[in-house]
């Protein structure tokens, strides 16, 4: 990666703040579900925190993001407020979607979080359209579409990357390669050695990076964002990472290689990053401890806020199907 895109200390601290929030939020989510306080299909992103934290640090609030069922890390990194998030996954009326969307369909346009989809591959065609809008308006907003390694084998991936390249759209295809698609290991599903290699099929810039390395990940993000803003078209970033837990909460992950998993967890990117920030004097232990404590408090408040929020009324069952008050 071109190192002139490396993040300075302040930026690294920004990235860490996000990563710490994401990690704490995932741990809390699993605890809350484990203790039965909330019931929902939960797709843990534990282990993948650095990717959206670094990506978001290269964006502004005005930029757009389209994510997937395993996307709460993306949304928090992009700025979705904890209260709105927790109230939504609790199915409450104060949630971003009044409780109607849930964890797989969280939406928060105020921060550019336009769509969360539960369909593999479907973040990409829609991201293209948002980017087309930016291209038409002449604003310099960038659109990020996240998806997984398994999604790189579905038709929508191909159609989307081809169209984005032909139309030179300001879009970034961010593949979070955690080596598994549900229970299937990468090699068994994907003919390409690297997802990034597929960019060549579209004459598109493509790069594989260590998504768990904030410096490398930020540099790739920054370069892609500059390319998009400069009108030079899309980028495919394959960010290598690992999913610490099963596909969905409750999945015993018998299919995962134990040694591989153990090694990945030992190399947990968030504490490693934390240690390095201190070692390099970018932040002090106390500083980071204070940040983390503040995060815990915010999450406490968000969980309480969510559980105190009322459920939507039954009238919501048939509301928002069509616009209200529109003829027919």
């Amino acid at each position, binding site marked *: 990666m071109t190192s002139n895109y490396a993040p300075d200390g302040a930026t690294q601290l920004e990235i860490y703040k996000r990563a710490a929030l994401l990690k704490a939020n995932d741990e809390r989510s699993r605890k809350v579900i484990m203790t039965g306080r909330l019931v929902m299909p939960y797709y843990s992103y534990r282990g993948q925190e650095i990717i959206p934290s670094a990506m978001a640090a290269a964006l502004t609030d005005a930029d757009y993001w389209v994510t997937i069922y395993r996307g709460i890390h993306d949304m928090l990194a992009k700025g979705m407020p904890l209260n709105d998030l927790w109230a939504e996954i609790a199915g409450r009326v104060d949630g971003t979607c009044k409780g109607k*969307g849930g964890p797989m369909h969280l939406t928060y346009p105020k921060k550019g979080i336009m*769509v969360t989809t539960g369909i593999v591959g479907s973040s*990409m065609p829609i991201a293209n359209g*948002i980017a087309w809008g930016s291209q038409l308006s002449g604003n310099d907003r960038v659109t990020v579409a996240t998806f997984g390694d398994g999604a790189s084998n579905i038709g929508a991936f191909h*159609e989307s990357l*081809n*169209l984005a390249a032909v139309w030179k759209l300001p879009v970034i295809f961010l593949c979070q390669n955690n080596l598994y698609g549900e229970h299937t290991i990468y090699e068994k599903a994907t003919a390409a050695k690297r997802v990034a290699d597929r960019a060549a099929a579209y004459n598109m810039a493509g790069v594989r990076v260590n998504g768990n390395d904030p410096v490398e990940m930020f540099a790739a993000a920054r370069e892609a964002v500059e390319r998009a803003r400069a009108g030079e078209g899309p980028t495919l970033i394959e960010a290598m990472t690992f999913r610490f837990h099963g596909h969905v909460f409750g999945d015993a992950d018998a299919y995962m290689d134990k040694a591989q998993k153990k090694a990945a967890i030992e190399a947990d990117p968030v504490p490693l990053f934390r240690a390095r920030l201190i070692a390099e004097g970018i932040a002090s232990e106390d500083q980071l401890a204070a940040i983390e404590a503040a995060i815990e408090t915010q999450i406490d408040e968000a969980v309480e806020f969510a559980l105190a929020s009322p459920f939507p009324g039954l009238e919501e069952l048939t509301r*928002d199907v*069509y616009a209200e008050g529109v003829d*027919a």
Partner: protein
Amino acid sequence: MSDAATQAKPVTIVQALNAALNDAMADDDSILVLGEDVADPEDGGVVGVTKGLSTRFGDRRVRSTPIAEQAIIGAAIGASLVGYKPIAEIMLMNFTTVAMDMIVNHAAKLRFMSGGQTNVPIVIRTMTGTGMGSGGQHCDYLEAWFAHTAGMKVVAPSNPADAYGLMRAAINDPDPVLFIENLPDYWRQGEAPKPGHVVPLGRARVAREGTDVTIVSYSRVLNEALAAVEELERAGISAEIIDLRTISPWDRETVCASVAKTARCLVTHEAVTEFGVGAEIAATLHTELFGKLKAPVARLGAPYAPVPFSNPLETAYAPTAKRIAEAAMALVK
């Protein structure tokens, strides 16, 4: 071509649609057109509905796409989320099958799933219909699928004026609209619509008043129904013809009022009868008018089969004026 809309002489449905697109795009810069071959370097569409648009409004607003229907609908959805009103063409209705995820799981649901934060004001234009000898994969009427999909609106005009007015309404609508155009009827002549003419969605039209039997239809088959009127007259039967125009949400009031008057109803369409649009209308009428009907609501659609190629079979596949007249007579006698 846009001035076709103001001509006194009759226009074709192609001309009316082209005028509607021209007039709408001239009124509102946020309207976009995308699809395979829609721009003028690609001939402005395989049938010419979008001819002249890219020349007049520029190739940024009117874009030919690769053959990639998921990408086409996805691009329309995305642009609609950030303030544009895209009109996406899926060349033939059978090709919606490769874009159903984008249409059904996304376009139709984003408003609801986002709790009303976002909406998808797109129009999906698509053509279909038997009569051109194109066989099993190019002529299906699949409107029942989309009518069964909460969040979608489904429109199917039968004449140039309605084509214009429904297109203007569909473009104005804040939710996704599937706009069905009949291929063999594209060149059907009819009264020229006035510029700006809008036909509200969800409103049927009494195409012809009558007293003995109500015939409900839409798209090309509506014209077959109109063509059956004379033969019915000769048999002493006065048929009221209702053009549904919007299939979902459909105009229960107008249809029920007519059948309340005639006490007999035939629903006819080109789609397969089983589990088709006629079933919903028949079930509703029997409920709304229980005990008041002189005969069960009759349904005349295509047989339970794919569209055949061989001309005599294809001709026997979709309802014709003759078979509609026969079915109506059977209801009355």
